[in-house]
């Protein structure tokens, strides 16, 4: 029996799993080895995907609580401590989904598959060290688009012909 030592506060990890059990996003705020990660994912998706639609959104698991919510074909799961507030976490999940929705324009699973990293960046603006850091959707949207722009500009620069020539003749 492995005993996991949770260092992070608040949320220990975030998982996005599709109804078919495919993992769409993972983010670990507590230290888990790669092997443990796969085990956790397997264990939890087994538990959560098998739960019926009218049940409560909380699962007790290894002394922790996993709060999950299904949006269309995706399950959003977050793991918290026993004494954390489940309803608050449900709100965080909903918050995240709303921001994704705003960013992608009615988000669907495919958006997250192809823009896997974007979903990550948005999550990073929402949570830090497992704590909610930004509760304003507008602010998150603004920050993300600013960073997108930063990347775009850099990309254009890099792919400009003069740049390629400069590289080739280096």
């Amino acid at each position, binding site marked *: 029996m492995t005993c996991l030592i949770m260092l992070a506060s608040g949320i220990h990890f975030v998982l996005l799993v599709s109804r078919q059990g495919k993992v769409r996003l993972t983010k670990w705020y507590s230290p888990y080895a790669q092997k443990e990660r796969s085990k956790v994912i397997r264990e939890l998706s087994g538990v959560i995907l098998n739960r*019926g639609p009218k049940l409560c959104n909380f699962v007790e698991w290894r002394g922790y609580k996993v709060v999950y919510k299904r949006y269309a074909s995706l399950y959003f799961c977050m793991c918290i401590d026993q004494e954390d507030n*489940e*309803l608050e976490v449900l709100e965080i999940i909903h918050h995240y989904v709303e921001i994704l929705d705003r960013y992608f324009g009615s988000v669907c699973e495919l958006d997250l598959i192809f823009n896997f990293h974007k979903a990550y960046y948005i999550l990073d603006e929402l949570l830090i060290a497992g704590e909610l850091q930004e509760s304003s959707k507008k602010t998150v949207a603004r920050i993300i688009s600013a960073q997108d722009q930063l990347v775009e500009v850099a990309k254009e620069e890099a792919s400009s012909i003069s740049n390629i020539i400069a590289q080739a003749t280096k």
Partner: protein
Amino acid sequence: MSSSSTSIMDNLFQRSLEDLIKGFRLQLLGESNFISRALEEIRREIKVTDLSTKSTALHKLSYLAALHGVDMSWAAFHAVEVVSSPRFQHKRIGYEAITQSFHEQTSVLLLITNQVRKDLNSANEYEVSLALECLSRIGTHDLARDLTPEVFTLLGSSKAFVKKKAIGVVLRVFEKYPDAVKVCFKRLVENLESSDPQILSAVVGVFCELATRDPGSCLPLAPELYKVLVDSRNNWVLIKVLKIFAKLASVEPRLGKKVAEPICEHMRRTVAKSLVFECVRTVVSSLSDHEAAVKLAVAKIREFLVEDDPNLKYLGLNALSIVAPKHLWAVLENKEAVVKALSDEDPNVKLEALHLLMSMVNEDNVSEISRILMNYALKSDPFFCNEIIFSVLSACSRNAYEIIVDFDWYVSLLGEMARIPHCQRGEEIEHQLIDIGMRVRDARPQLVRVSWALLIDPALLGNLFLHPILSAAAWISGEYVEFCKNPYETVEVLLQPRTGLLPPSIRAVYIHSAFKVLIFCLRSYFSAEESTLSFSAQEFSSASSSMNAFTYESILNLVNVIELGLVPLSGTHDVEVQERTKNVLGFIGMIKQDLAEKLNLQDSETEVFRVTAFMEDVFSEELGPVSATAQDKVCVPGGLELKENLGDLEEICGEFLKPVDSVSYTDKISFSVSKLRIRDQQEASSSSSPPHEASSLLAEHRKRHGMYYLPSQKDDPDSNGTPNDYPLANELANEISPDPFNPKKKPNQSKQRPVVVKLEEGDESRNPPQAKSNIETVNDDESLSRAIQSALLVKNKGKEKDKSETNPNSGQQEKEESSRIEDHQNSEKKKKKKKKKNGERSSKHKSRGRNEVASASEQVIIPDYLL
């Protein structure tokens, strides 16, 4: 030239992450094949010097690691390379890879310190954010120590975006490097007065975590936090503040009085369920002495319970179970909802309801609740069924069966549990059956009846989970055979051929029990005979009157049945079964001739009489419960060196090592043989002297190495019958005190509670020592809280310099705090009226702030010494 052109080719024709994802969806190779192909590609690309090729490769690798569990630790160095790129998009990929894959043992971690510092100082706030993000995840002691000055600077950043992230990181830094508290604490505390809700939320989050680790250290901040509790209308912030006060109130009960009212206010005001729930939880867990608050909280719980939303129902039950220990009325008020929840379709809700129901159990309703639960157990799925059984078992056995009055009923209930189809709690039931047998004399007749019913049930033999119960039943029928209606049938049941389905260890119990029954039958047969002849047998009459008198034929028959049943077993491979069988057969062999000749059996000179009497003596000792702390009661005799190094033992015993092995082997054989030859043993003058050779060896050994022996009263090691220095297990068990039984307690009770043997202390198996999470983290926590305390001391000193020179002890400190809170409350009330006073206050604040800035700037120097 050639190398750079290949890098361009790599760059131009490299598959991007998007290509990889698309490829994944179209691939026909099978997932693992596709991944290993992609990995091959990545390994090649990641070695290229061109940073954009490298970063794309790293990006793809992070993707595979995150979603497909691919190991990426091998690319740690490449991640460091990518982070050092001047471009934001590369950096982002690099940092993402680092947070995802680095841990404390990653060796290249040492290489990123400078890069992270550079990015923390960057003018681009997004780069700063990346570095902070990274630090919050992988910060080690060294990183935290080296980067404390940067984090401190960022805490004062004018950009809210950066500041709130810096606050988020502070916790990790404190945790890894407690000395950082000295530097950063003041700035952190200042932010409690921030008007930006995001900043406030972040800083309250940090204190929430600190309070969880060590509530005492955050106590001095109560006034500031109280202000937030009263003023804030941000639910995220309020939830965190409530959590902090829940922790603080547990160490400082007087705080409860202050915060109860504002919490109730929030409860009445807000519509956000999450906030209501947090209020409820805070009240029921930490403010349970405040009647009005509890009443309001329970009213809110009731609202939750009647909602259709399964989440609220679950949380309502959850909150009820927290309130239950102190305010049982809250549960009783909602009893209907709880029982109804037992048949909810959600297993979590059902479990929670079950726990609650068990918290309601007392001696008056235990049978009613058990009845309800047993009915549910019959209908439920295997998991929930066993949860029910387990809860009933543990609730009833709590504190030496405290709530059980009618043990006959309880024993029957245990028997019923064995018949629930899904029952898998055999071991616990086994334990309780035997435990009750040993503790409760009055329950024994019923125990024997229940055991008999279990033993004759052929269905139970086939169920693996129930075997332990059968073992207990067999043991009970042997141990308490005097209550048995028909010993002859008991023996038949114990030796029935279907017992072959049992594991050998349990079969051995069966055989041994049959042995006990046989001895009992013989003995009562003799005593019956005796009583017909002699007049002094009144003591037996009571025992034998209940028994059907044994005739000579029935005894002979019994012996035959046992012999018939056991002979085939004497050749089994399991030693335990074989040995038990041989014991019984050996005994029968001894008595058989006498029996067959039908000599004067009651004559105390006959072999059979003597042997039976002897065996009865062997079995007559009553077994008692053994305290879980029995071992502790054995005091270490003086002169026994437990802690001395035994390193020289090898040297001393080296020559004995081999012979000791062989001796112990022959010893074992000779002992097991001697067990069978009871006759020999009886005739021998000393019943337990070890073989002569061994004893002389022992004596020699003792002479040479006396220091390792315990001191004994007699020097002669061969002396037998010397009372041992150690109390025997049963002697310990005899130090019992009968349960203080008070008939006045329940006058309406028709049946008196039988005496339950209860050891004086430590009867309950003690809780295993709290799982120590990790010694190191504990140390970290300690040093962290110490650091916070000293930081606060400094702060308080600065504030109350003129008030008192001495360090305030905690009580005094607390008084000051509460007066400060009162101050605040008063000022709240008078706010509108006396603006002037308010102005004074704020100016005071300002001056205080200046002071702190001044002292903080002094402290910035501290980390510089460390670098």
